[in-house]
């Protein structure tokens, strides 16, 4: 889509304004958008929302069907798979929001079998005994017995 103002550059900014109680929507290129709203706050707020050139209006999540445009309005994604569906858009936005792009916290390692769960419980049991929390220790000991059948 071409910019609705200069009709030359590709439209990369979605601009919305209320004039005399009417909502006016425009698709603009960055220079034209800057003329309409020249303050830097807009720049800052819009930084994550500047559209990549590839007609993202049609981008929808492959799993839940949420359009990317809906996320732009509500800041809420539709399902966990939206992160892969909207990876091109979000990979630019996330570092701006978070300052980093990669998780460094604890990893999710679900215990998949009884053996692994029992091993985890034994560690918890040792922990509770070390902290002299004998009530918890007794509970965990019962749990281990149950798991081991």
């Amino acid at each position: 889509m071409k910019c609705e103002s200069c009709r030359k550059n590709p439209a990369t900014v979605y601009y919305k304004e209320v004039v005399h109680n009417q909502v006016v929507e425009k698709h603009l290129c960055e220079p034209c958008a800057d003329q309409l709203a020249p303050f830097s706050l807009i720049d800052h707020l819009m930084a994550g929302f500047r559209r990549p050139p590839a007609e993202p209006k049609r981008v929808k999540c492959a799993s839940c069907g949420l359009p990317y445009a809906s996320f732009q309005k509500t800041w809420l994604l539709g399902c966990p798979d939206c992160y892969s569906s909207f990876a091109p858009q979000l990979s630019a936005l996330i570092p701006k929001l978070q300052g980093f792009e990669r998780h460094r916290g604890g990893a999710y390692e679900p215990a998949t079998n009884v053996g692994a769960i029992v091993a985890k419980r034994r560690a918890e049991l040792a922990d509770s005994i070390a902290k002299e929390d004998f009530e918890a220790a007794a509970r965990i000991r019962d749990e281990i017995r149950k798991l081991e059948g």
Partner: protein
Amino acid sequence: MRLAHILRSKMEWLGRPGATVLSSRIRLARSLRGRPFPNHSEATELRAVLLQAFRACKGQPAFAKAAFVELDDVTELDRTLLVERHVISHQQATAGPDRGVVLSPGESLSVLVNEEDHLRLQGLSPGLSLEAGFERLRRLDSRLGEQLPYAYDDKLGYLTACPTNLGTGLRASCLLHLPALMITGRIQTVLDGLGGAGMVARGIYGEGSRVLGDLFQVSNSTTLGRTEADYIRSVERAIGRLVAREESERRMLLSDNRLQLEDQAARSLGLLLHARVLSFDEALSLLSRVRLGAELGLLDTPLENVDRLFIEARPAHLQVTSGGELEGPEIDRRRAEIVRAALS
């Protein structure tokens, strides 16, 4: 255990009377793989998540005596009570059916189901105790993760409905009483300074610059790219600096404006003791001054009574302790009564 019983029980998380840091809270946002987020879910989907989450929580030792509450099943008054205790958000209270909360006695651990994310695990503890509070929460998280398929990505961490919670999903916050910084007018500068440290602060009651009761919540502003322990340590450090600032302002006020400070505290106490009608806003502002006066030894009002009133003077709490719903003016009359009884 019934919800009413839990809400009438002692609030374990209320810390040392008069402390600058009232309570510490940590929450972890978790979502379930293969399910749409609550805001994008059909009713049947919400129902399935609620049942799945309740089932997983029922097996947890930490929830042996917990209340399992479907918010649609309890009265509006009970929902407001949960909001006043900061257990659920106002948004969650009014979101409609298939929202729920699992709440341990004393409110030290809770799980919100179908708020913005499928699960929000919360730990609440008295005073400045984020690290200790996190330990319990981490164990609950690990156990729930065995039974529930968390949505997790190696690069992005735990996947949340809003990317501002992505990664660790961890928000560590403290509730602080900062009356001296408010009196000297230095609060804004101090809070602005927190931004650079990756913290965000907001008043608990009131809007914009009109903060009621001088109560603030400070928390980490980002959740991705650092470890859980890093986020918790940075909040604890920021809180430590804030407390030191508040204390130095108090010392300054005491040495330069002792008479004024004492006068303000005593006048506030006078109003609280003699008013026959008290709005929540007025009660909160006056209680804040009395709390400061008592903490500095200018008044001999027992601090634990003042602290209790910060919670018991709230509208839903008042109505529950009065045994039923009250109309607007009745609430203010009743508030004046309980404040008078607690402080005289």
